[in-house]
C-alpha cells in the first residue's frame, strides 16, 4: 500500500520538496497538502515586484490547480493545521483529521511584531504574504496617503520602494546606524540610503519606535525621541521568527527553530521539517537558496535514500530598481582578515572584499554588482587568490593582464576623453594648453578651467601634464591628510562644501577613502570640517574626537584628568573659589594650579569622578572651561579703566563679553584671546590668536599672534570704535578661521597661508560678508554653545563614565 505523506505549509520550501519527490517517484506517497493561506504555492520573493506593480500575482504562481491535480496532491488550502497527534499519527486540520506515515513540517516563519502600544491597530501590518501585499496596494489608492515602514532591512526597503513606486509618501525607520546592517557595511549603507532618498523615500536611522498612535485605526508613529510621523499605514518589517507553535505543542524538539539532523529529520524520525521553520546545527535560514538544498535532502530521505544537508554561503541582492547591491559571505572583519576597498565616487560605486588566509570570505558591493557572482563563486570555492590579489577587486576582466601603470593609462586616453566633468574639459584642450606654455597647475586651471571646480580631477590633470612635459614636470608632493586618502586637507574642505557632503560615510565614499572608516589622524579632522560646515545637518561624533574632547577633560600621563572651570575674563568670586576648594577636597585633587590662562586647574581627578565633580561645580554656577578643546579657550583681561590709572576702556568687561559670545565653539585648533586696557598690554594681547588693545580712540584688533612653539606679534586687522564693532569683527574672524583653516593650523599659520589682505577683504572691507560670517557663527552657536559638563553629568549620561561590568565580584565566588 502507498504510504501517506502529510505536508503542513505550501510554501517555497515544501514546493521544491514535492517537485523532487514526484520527479523521482510519483507513486511513492499519497500526499495531502495543508496551507493556511487560501492558495497554493507562489514565489514569495516576487511579492515585491507585485507590490511595485512590475508583476501580477498570476505571474508569480509556481504551482497552479492543474499541477496539484495532475500530481494527485490533495489540497487543503485556507485550512490551518491546529494539532499534531504523534501517538495516533494524525494531523488535525480545522476541517478534520488526516492520518500520516510521514509528516513534513514546512510552516515557514512568522513576522516579528515589536511589542509597542498600538501594534494591533488596523492599518498596522507585516510583510509576509499576498494578503499583506494587497493591503498595501489598497492603502496606496488613497490620494496623499502616508506610510511608515519600520525596519530598514531587505523586506522593509522592498516594501518602502514598492509603496513609493505607487505614489505613497514613505518614511523608513531603522533602529541601527545604517540600512541593512546585516548585509552591508556603512559605506554601502550610505550609498543605498542616498539612492532611496533620491527616489523620495525618507530614511531615519537610529530611530526607535515608542508607540503607534491612533483611535480606531493607525494615525501616526511616535519615536523614542518624541518625534511623531503621521501614517495611514504602518508596515513592520523588523525580522522573522521560525513558526514552531505546532511542533512545540506536539513536543517535537525546538530550539529557536524546529531542530533537524543532517537528513532533515526532527526528534521524531517520522516527522521531517524544511524551510524557515527549522534550525540546523544552531543555524536559522531566511533566504531561499539553502531551503532549496534542504528540499533535495528531504525528498531523498522520504524516498529512503541517504543525503546530507550542509549549509553553504548565501548572497543577498535587493530587489529595488536602481539600487544595485550585492552582499555575500562574512564581511564582519575578523582575526587575520584584511580588506580590499575600491571606490569610484563619480559613478557611486563601492566594492569591498574581505580576505582571510588568501581566500575571499566576504564581499559587499554597491553600484556595480556585475562581478558579484564571480566573487561569490570564489567565496564558495575557497579559491586561493594570492596570484590575483593586486587586481582582484577589478573583477574577472582584469585577471591575467599586467597591472596598469596609471601614467600609461592616461597616455592611452583618446583626445576627446573628458577629464574635468564640471567644466567639460577634454584631454586635447589640456594638452594644448600645456604645450602652449602652461606648465603648472595654476596656469592650466586659468587657461582651461580644468580642475577649477570640484577639484577631483586634479590628479588626472597632473598626470596629463606629466605625460605631456615628460621629465620637465615635477609631480607636486602635496601632503595628503593621512594614509587613508591622497587628498590634502584643503582639497577635502573644499569638496565637503562644493559636493555638500554631510556625513562621514559620504566623505569616505565620495572622496574615495581607502580604509573603511578612516583613522585617528583623519577622523577628528573630518568630524570638525563637517560640523563646522554643516552645523545643522551633521551630528558631532564623539568617537571621532581625541579623548580630551570626548571626555571634556585633559588626560594626564597616569590616566587621570584635569578639570578647569571657566572664569569669564579671568574674573572670579569668593563663592566660586570656595566651591572649587570644596571640590578639590571632596575629590582628593592632588594638585591645584593657577594656569597661564587666568583660571584654576584641578589636576589628577579620576575618570569615574568627573561627572560628580562637574555637577558640584555646575551647582556653584560654573561651566567647563574647554581647557582641552580645539575651540575657544580663555579670554585673558587686565583690570582696565575700572581700577587702573592708565586704563582707557573697560577691558575686563569687553573680555567677558567676548568670552560669552565665543565660548563653546569648535575650531581647527585652539583659540585664545586677550584684552588689554592700554598699550602697556598687561594681558599680553599682542601675542594671542585674537588680541584687543584698548586705546583712547577705541579698540585695536590684532590677529594671528603666537606665544607657544613659535612667538609672533599679532597683525593689526582693524581699529574699531565701539565694543559692538570689536565683538563683530572678532566673531567674523573666528568664523572665517573656522570655515577655512586646515585642521590643527592655529590662526597665525592659517593667516600666513591666505594672507592678511585676504582676511581684511573678507572682514574689514566687505561689511555684508562680515555680517554673514557672524550670522553663520551664531547659527552654529545655537547648536554647539552648551555646557558639556551639564550634559555629561546628567543622570542618563554619567553612568557611561563607569565600567560597564565588574567581574571582580563574581570571580570571588
Amino acid at each position, binding site marked *: 500500500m502507498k504510504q501517506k505523506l502529510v505536508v503542513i505549509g505550501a510554501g517555497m520550501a515544501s514546493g521544491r520538496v514535492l517537485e523532487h519527490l514526484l520527479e523521482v517517484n510519483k507513486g511513492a506517497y499519497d500526499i495531502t497538502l495543508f496551507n493556511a493561506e487560501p492558495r497554493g504555492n507562489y514565489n514569495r520573493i516576487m511579492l515585491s515586484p507585485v507590490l511595485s506593480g512590475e508583476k501580477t500575482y498570476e505571474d508569480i504562481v509556481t504551482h497552479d490547480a492543474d499541477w496539484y491535480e495532475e500530481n494527485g496532491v490533495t489540497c487543503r488550502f485556507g485550512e490551518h493545521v491546529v494539532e499534531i497527534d504523534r501517538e495516533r499519527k494524525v494531523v488535525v486540520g480545522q476541517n478534520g483529521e488526516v492520518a500520516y506515515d510521514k509528516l513534513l513540517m514546512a510552516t515557514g516563519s512568522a513576522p516579528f511584531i515589536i511589542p509597542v502600544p498600538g501594534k494591533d491597530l488596523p492599518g498596522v501590518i507585516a510583510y509576509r504574504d499576498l494578503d499583506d501585499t494587497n493591503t498595501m496596494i489598497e492603502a496606496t489608492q488613497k490620494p496623499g496617503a502616508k506610510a511608515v515602514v519600520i525596519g530598514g532591512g531587505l523586506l522593509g526597503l522592498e516594501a518602502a520602494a514598492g509603496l513609493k513606486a505607487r505614489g505613497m509618501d514613505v518614511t523608513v525607520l531603522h533602529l*541601527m*546606524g*545604517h540600512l541593512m*546592517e*546585516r548585509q552591508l*557595511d*556603512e559605506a554601502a549603507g550610505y550609498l543605498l540610503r542616498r539612492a532611496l532618498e533620491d527616489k523620495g523615500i525618507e530614511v531615519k536611522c537610529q530611530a526607535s519606535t515608542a508607540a503607534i498612535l491612533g483611535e480606531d485605526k493607525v494615525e501616526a508613529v511616535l519615536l523614542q525621541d518624541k518625534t511623531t510621523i503621521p501614517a495611514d499605514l504602518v508596515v513592520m518589517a523588523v525580522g522573522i521568527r521560525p513558526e514552531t507553535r505546532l511542533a512545540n505543542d506536539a513536543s517535537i524538539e525546538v530550539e529557536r527553530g524546529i531542530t533537524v539532523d543532517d537528513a532533515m529529520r526532527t526528534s521524531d524520525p517520522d516527522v521531517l521539517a524544511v524551510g524557515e521553520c527549522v534550525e540546523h546545527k544552531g543555524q536559522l535560514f531566511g533566504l531561499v537558496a539553502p531551503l532549496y538544498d534542504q528540499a533535495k535532502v528531504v525528498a531523498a530521505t522520504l524516498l529512503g535514500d541517504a543525503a546530507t544537508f550542509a549549509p553553504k554561503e548565501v548572497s543577498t541582492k535587493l530587489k529595488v530598481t536602481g539600487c544595485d547591491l550585492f552582499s555575500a559571505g562574512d564581511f*564582519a*572583519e*575578523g*582575526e*587575520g*582578515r584584511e*580588506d580590499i576597498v575600491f571606490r569610484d565616487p563619480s559613478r557611486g560605486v563601492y566594492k569591498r572584499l574581505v580576505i582571510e588566509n588568501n581566500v575571499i570570505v566576504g564581499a559587499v558591493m554597491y553600484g556595480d554588482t556585475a562581478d558579484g557572482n564571480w566573487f561569490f563563486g570564489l567565496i564558495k570555492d575557497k579559491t586561493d587568490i594570492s596570484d590575483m590579489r593586486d587586481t582582484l577587486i577589478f573583477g574577472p576582466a582584469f585577471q591575467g593582464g599586467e597591472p596598469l601603470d596609471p601614467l600609461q593609462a592616461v597616455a592611452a586616453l583618446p583626445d576627446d576623453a573628458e577629464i574635468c566633468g564640471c567644466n567639460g574639459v577634454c584631454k586635447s584642450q589640456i594638452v594644448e594648453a600645456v604645450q602652449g606654455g602652461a606648465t603648472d597647475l595654476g596656469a592650466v586651471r586659468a587657461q582651461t578651467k580644468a580642475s577649477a571646480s570640484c577639484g577631483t580631477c586634479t590628479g588626472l590633470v597632473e598626470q596629463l601634464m606629466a605625460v605631456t612635459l615628460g621629465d620637465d614636470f615635477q609631480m607636486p608632493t602635496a601632503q595628503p591628510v593621512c594614509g587613508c586618502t591622497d587628498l590634502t586637507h584643503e582639497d577635502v574642505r573644499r569638496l565637503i562644501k562644493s559636493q555638500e557632503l554631510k556625513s562621514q560615510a559620504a566623505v569616505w565614499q565620495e572622496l574615495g577613502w581607502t*580604509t*573603511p*572608516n*578612516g*583613522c*585617528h589622524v583623519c*577622523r*577628528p579632522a573630518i568630524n570638525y570640517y563637517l560640523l563646522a560646515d554643516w552645523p545643522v545637518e551633521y551630528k558631532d*561624533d*564623539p*568617537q*571621532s*574626537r*581625541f*579623548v580630551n574632547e*570626548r*571626555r571634556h577633560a585633559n*588626560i594626564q*600621563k*597616569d*590616566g587621570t584628568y584635569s578639570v578647569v572651570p571657566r572664569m569669564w575674563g579671568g574674573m572670579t568670586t569668593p563663592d566660586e573659589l570656595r566651591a572649587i576648594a570644596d571640590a578639590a577636597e571632596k575629590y582628593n585633587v592632588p594638585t591645584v594650579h593657577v594656569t597661564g590662562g587666568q583660571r584654576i586647574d584641578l589636576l589628577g581627578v579620576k*575618570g569615574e569622578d568627573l561627572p560628580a565633580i562637574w555637577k558640584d561645580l555646575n551647582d556653584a554656577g560654573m561651566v567647563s572651561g574647554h581647557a582641552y578643546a580645539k575651540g575657544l579657550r580663555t579670554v585673558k583681561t587686565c583690570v582696565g579703566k575700572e581700577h587702573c590709572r592708565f586704563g582707557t576702556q573697560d577691558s575686563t568687561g569687553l573680555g567677558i563679553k567676548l568670552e560669552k559670545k565665543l565660548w563653546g565653539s569648535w575650531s581647527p585648533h585652539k583659540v585664545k584671546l586677550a584684552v588689554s586696557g592700554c598699550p602697556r598690554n598687561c594681558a599680553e594681547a599682542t601675542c594671542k590668536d585674537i588680541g584687543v588693545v584698548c586705546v583712547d580712540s577705541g579698540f585695536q584688533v590684532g590677529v594671528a599672534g603666537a606665544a607657544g612653539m613659535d612667538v609672533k606679534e599679532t597683525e593689526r586687522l582693524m581699529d574699531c570704535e565701539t565694543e559692538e564693532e570689536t565683538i563683530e569683527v572678532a566673531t567674523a574672524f573666528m568664523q572665517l578661521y573656522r570655515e577655512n583653516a586646515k585642521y590643527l593650523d592655529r590662526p597665525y599659520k592659517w593667516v600666513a597661508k591666505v594672507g592678511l589682505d585676504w582676511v581684511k577683504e573678507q572682514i574689514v572691507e566687505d561689511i555684508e560678508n562680515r555680517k554673514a560670517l557672524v550670522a553663520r557663527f551664531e547659527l552654529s552657536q545655537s547648536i554647539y554653545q552648551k555646557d558639556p559638563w551639564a550634559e555629561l553629568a546628567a543622570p542618563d549620561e554619567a553612568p*557611561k563614565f563607569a*565600567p*560597564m*561590568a*565588574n*567581574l*571582580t565580584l*563574581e*570571580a570571588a565566588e
Partner: protein
Amino acid sequence: MSWIDIGAIDDIPLRGARVVKTKLGCVAVFRTSETEVFATSDRCPHKNGPLSEGIVHGQKVTCPLHNWVFDLNTGEAQGADEGKIDTFPAKVEAGRILLDGTLLMNRAA
C-alpha cells in the same frame, strides 16, 4: 569556554569602547561596527595609556597618549612600534555582548 553577558551592544557607542573590571585589571571592550566587538587589555604596553579612550578605526585602536596603533585581532602594535596587548574572545549574540568567562575568571584565581 563559558560566555558571560556583560551588557548590551548599545551600551558602547559605535567605534567606541567601555571597560570591564576583572581581577586581571581592566579589559577594554571595543565596538568596531554595528554588530562587532573585541576585547583586549586596557593598558598600552608603551606607557600604560588607557586604550579604551583611544580612537577606534577599522579593527584598530590608537592609544590616546602617544598614538601607538594596535590591531584588535592580534593585539600587535602596528608599524614601527613593538608591543602586544592581550586579546580575549568576545562576541555579540541577540544584541548582547559576551566575553569568555573561563579565561577572565581562571586567570583571576
